[in-house]
């Protein structure tokens, strides 16, 4: 299979075999970093971050540097020409000429998809509003694969802001493509998974979804607990945010009856939704998860650039 020149806008752009290929190379990159340290020599990654980011941007930069390439870009819309009124599409057309591959984060949903029509180099969606975050999904899947051995027959609980949580949207749509998966959605009623995603999951994959309001109602059964932050930046008014911000806080007593091999995951950043005491629990894997993000992005870029 050849992914050279492709864009990654939505995880469904890649087949499960293609995803598996990316994970296999990512695993090898972690084991044998020297083998890959020069494969992107002379290549330039452009990071177009119209919305703040720490992990995604730095992990992309780290990934390109570990492959021997260079990085240019901006990390805030205020320091780009969009501040002067330029359309993001004009920015993309211009930066296509300055780089070999691009990653874009944008607060508007669908901006990376639209931009990909104007880009002459592979464009990666680094998160668009409350819509999709495909490279976080690659990170999450590699984490599950590395720590559970395979991705199948798992009971997965997704907790927190399921309405605006783009990591959840990409993840559930992708996990649903693997065999034997079932899902527990835990959120306040105001932050439930959007109807368009539920309908798509039902029609395309006929999967089992249980909607709950308490973590305790499923904690004994689940294999993965995916926590998310209630995102202040997605609310149009502060009052609504304040009402919901402390809806779910994971504490040690809540996981007392959980399976010993449970994986507690989080895309980070965390604010207060996972108590710091949980960090010591061997089931908490969110920092390992962040590490895997670099290897999976190295593998992704190497595939899209056709340098393997």
């Amino acid at each position, binding site marked *: 299979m050849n992914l050279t020149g492709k864009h990654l806008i939505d995880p469904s752009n890649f087949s499960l075999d293609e995803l598996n290929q990316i994970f296999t190379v990512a695993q090898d990159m972690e084991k044998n970093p020297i083998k890959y340290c020069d494969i992107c020599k002379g290549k330039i990654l452009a990071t177009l971050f119209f919305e703040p980011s720490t992990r995604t941007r730095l992990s992309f930069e780290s990934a390109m540097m570990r492959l021997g390439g260079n990085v240019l870009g901006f990390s805030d819309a205020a320091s780009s020409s969009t501040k002067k009124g330029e*359309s993001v599409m004009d920015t993309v057309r211009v930066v296509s000429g300055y780089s070999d591959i691009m990653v874009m984060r944008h607060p508007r*949903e669908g901006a990376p998809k639209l931009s990909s029509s*104007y880009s002459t180099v592979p464009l990666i969606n680094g998160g668009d509003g409350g819509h999709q975050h495909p490279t976080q999904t690659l990170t999450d899947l590699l984490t599950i694969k590395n720590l559970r051995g395979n991705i199948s027959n798992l009971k997965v609980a997704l907790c927190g802001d399921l309405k605006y949580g783009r990591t959840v949207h990409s993840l559930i749509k992708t996990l649903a493509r693997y065999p034997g998966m079932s899902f527990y959605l835990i959120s306040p009623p105001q932050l439930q998974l959007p*109807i368009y995603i539920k309908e798509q999951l039902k029609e395309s994959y006929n999967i089992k979804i249980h909607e709950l309001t308490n973590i305790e109602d499923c904690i004994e059964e689940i294999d993965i607990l995916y926590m998310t932050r209630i995102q202040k930046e997605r609310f149009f008014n502060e009052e609504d945010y304040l009402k919901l911000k402390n809806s779910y806080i994971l504490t040690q007593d809540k996981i007392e009856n959980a399976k010993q091999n449970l994986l507690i995951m989080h895309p980070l950043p965390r604010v207060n939704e996972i108590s710091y005491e949980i960090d010591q629990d061997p089931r908490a894997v969110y920092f390992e998860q962040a590490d895997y993000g670099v290897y999976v992005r190295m593998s992704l870029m190497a595939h899209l650039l056709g340098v393997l």
Partner: protein
Amino acid sequence: MLSVAGIEQGIVIDHINQGNGLKIIEKLGLGNVNFPVVLLTNVDSEKLDKKDIIKIENAFELDLTMLGLIDPNLTINIIQNGKTEKKYKLSTPTSVKGLFECQNPRCITNHDIYAEPTFTLIDAKQLKYKCDYCEDFTYYK
């Protein structure tokens, strides 16, 4: 009874549900054109009891896709040399570009000049469309 002459060349939109005629004139921008347009409203009809009719003379290059959204029961008649050359019904369009806005305020199509709202039909009865960019549902009203 009021009588309006037939046209030699053009389009007759017939069997419009009573009251939708003005909406169609507005949506097709027919209030601001340089060819003759006639709107007949409250016309007796066997099928509909009352109906509206629009006659457009000397114009064929109109995008009529929108009409399937407003009134899927209407009939389009293409008139040439005073005779009906073609007669067809419109169905609800399965793919729509630039005809209405995405209801998701965070969608790029509401914020960038390059982004033309583009939708795929999900449910014809409810006029429910899925945005090709943000994937959220928009109901045409």
